[in-house]
């Protein structure tokens, strides 16, 4: 194996083409992963802000909070279930907000419970605002937003990050939301959409509180989101294809390298190398090249995401990078091992004559 590493160090130029190709593929993987996570996060901020609580929805909503309408009295009933610590309302409606005439699509959220992400609900006439809105329009704490068709004025008390729901979110107290939502859609009486429950009660226990209720964890509700699922599967598919291309690039490179080295391998076999010694050497070279490509690719990929406009939903998630790094190295080793059959066929007797 150390012979293979010496070759890598002393004939680095030979490995440069595959290093460049793999680095570019890693950059692509990093950017695709950033889009996948960015799109997912930008859609699900309202739900993720609820932490590890359970959501209770109307059964006919198929776990889509925006389609849910809780029957009256549900929140009070849930509060009586054993193991329930807190129950709060959570509702959303899409509308617009303007700042100094600059109109933006927003999602108005009504809530009762503070979380690790969210402060206590603001008082009437005030709003907690998604920091994403500040990226799009010139708004600061203390400024006034005109929300909805009636241009209801809300004063910004604070900004919170990572709570977007496709559009930036504006968070008001649940009672205020009911009043504002009626102005957004005057033809339908605004109704609380979901209840957020903390404590030890299971989703099944909570769903059994009343007829026509369903309950699920935040993760399950996110997983049931059609938009998130479609985006995720699309990007996962592209990422998968990129890994296949990486595998083919590495395999092709090492096949060509092996063809070039037939004589050398015959000599090494003749003087006592086992096939597994040669394969281990190739695998070591593949791991070293892949590791370098991962470092360069992640560095360049992160640099690239910093250059894109802020309205593009790109998020670098360390866990995603770790998975990409390990998968790239594994794929490189598998690609290198594609030459195993060729190496097995090399006859040591070819070293003589």
């Amino acid at each position, binding site marked *: 194996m*150390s*012979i293979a590493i*010496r*070759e890598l160090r*002393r*004939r680095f130029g030979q490995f440069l083409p595959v290093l460049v190709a793999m680095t570019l593929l890693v950059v692509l993987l990093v950017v695709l992963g950033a889009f996948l996570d960015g799109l997912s996060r930008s859609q699900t901020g309202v739900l993720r802000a609820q932490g590890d609580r359970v959501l209770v929805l109307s059964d006919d909503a198929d776990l889509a909070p925006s389609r849910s309408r809780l029957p009256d009295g549900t929140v009070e009933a849930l509060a009586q279930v054993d193991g329930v610590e807190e129950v709060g309302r959570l509702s959303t409606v899409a509308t617009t907000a303007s700042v100094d005439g600059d109109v933006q699509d927003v999602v108005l959220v009504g809530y009762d419970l503070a979380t690790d992400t969210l402060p206590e609900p603001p008082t009437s006439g005030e709003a907690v605002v998604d920091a994403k809105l500040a990226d799009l329009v010139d708004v600061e704490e203390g400024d006034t937003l005109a929300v909805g068709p009636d241009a209801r004025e809300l004063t910004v008390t604070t900004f919170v990050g990572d709570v977007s729901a496709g559009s930036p979110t504006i968070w008001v107290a649940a009672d205020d939301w009911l009043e504002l939502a009626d102005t957004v859609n005057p033809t339908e009486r605004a109704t609380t959409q979901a209840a957020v429950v903390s404590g030890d009660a299971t989703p099944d226990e909570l769903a059994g509180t009343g007829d026509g209720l369903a309950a699920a964890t935040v993760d399950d509700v996110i997983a049931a989101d059609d938009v998130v699922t479609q985006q995720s599967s699309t990007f996962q598919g592209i990422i998968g294809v990129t890994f296949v291309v990486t595998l083919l690039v590495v395999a092709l490179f090492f096949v060509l390298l092996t063809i070039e080295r037939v*004589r*050398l391998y015959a*000599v*090494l*076999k*003749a*003087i*006592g*190398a*086992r*096939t597994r*010694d040669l394969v281990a050497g190739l695998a070591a070279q593949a791991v070293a090249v892949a590791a370098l490509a991962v470092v360069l690719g992640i560095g360049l990929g992160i640099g690239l995401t910093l250059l894109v406009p802020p309205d593009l939903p790109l998020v670098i998630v360390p866990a995603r990078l770790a998975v990409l790094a390990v998968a790239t190295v594994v794929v490189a080793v598998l690609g290198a091992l594609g030459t195993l059959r060729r190496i097995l066929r090399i*006859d*040591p*007797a070819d*070293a*003589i*004559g």
Partner: protein
Amino acid sequence: MPALTIDKARKEFPSGEQTIVAVDDVDLSVDDGEFLVLEGPSGSGKTTLLTLAGALATPTSGSIRLGDVELGDLEGNERSAVRRDRIGFVFQSVNLIPFLSATENLLAVRQLGGGRVDRDARDRAEQLLEELGLGGRGDNVPDELSGGQRQRVAIGRALMNDPDLLLVDEPTSALDSELGRQVVELLRDEVDRRGVAAIMVTHDERVTDLGDRIVKMVDGALVES
């Protein structure tokens, strides 16, 4: 016991509907410290016999024993181990590893099969290069050495694991007559000094006198000179 005993060894190759007999029931033995010269025209089977003796190929029939080890009985990894530990090869086209220095080419033999390069191995490599007149060239890669120097590094590599049998294929083919004779004299000295059995295949009649015994091969069969 001879270092190498070849008993009725035969090697056939299929060629279309015909069968080519490259080695035809050859009997041969080489003792420790004996330097045997194998000569003959092209296509006479010399190289094939060398591959059989070097555990690089198996005979169609017959027996080849290295000391008391029957080479035909060995499996793949066992054959690799025998080639690594008990046989030294000097190839016609030298075949050094191009990206390793002279010293590293010798040490590579130790590394194959998972062996470690320790202080003793380094000392032995340096000593061999010194004996072969390459004391100051250990750090040079093959491209930085002359043809004769490369051939001497190849001899050092063949001797690195202190083999029982040295197999040398046309060592003078790429060298001028003076340098070629020097290389074979060096081989002769190493055989004497180490008591290793050696078979040298050559066309070069100018060096055959350095062997203890000359065996001619014609049409796959041996003709003792």
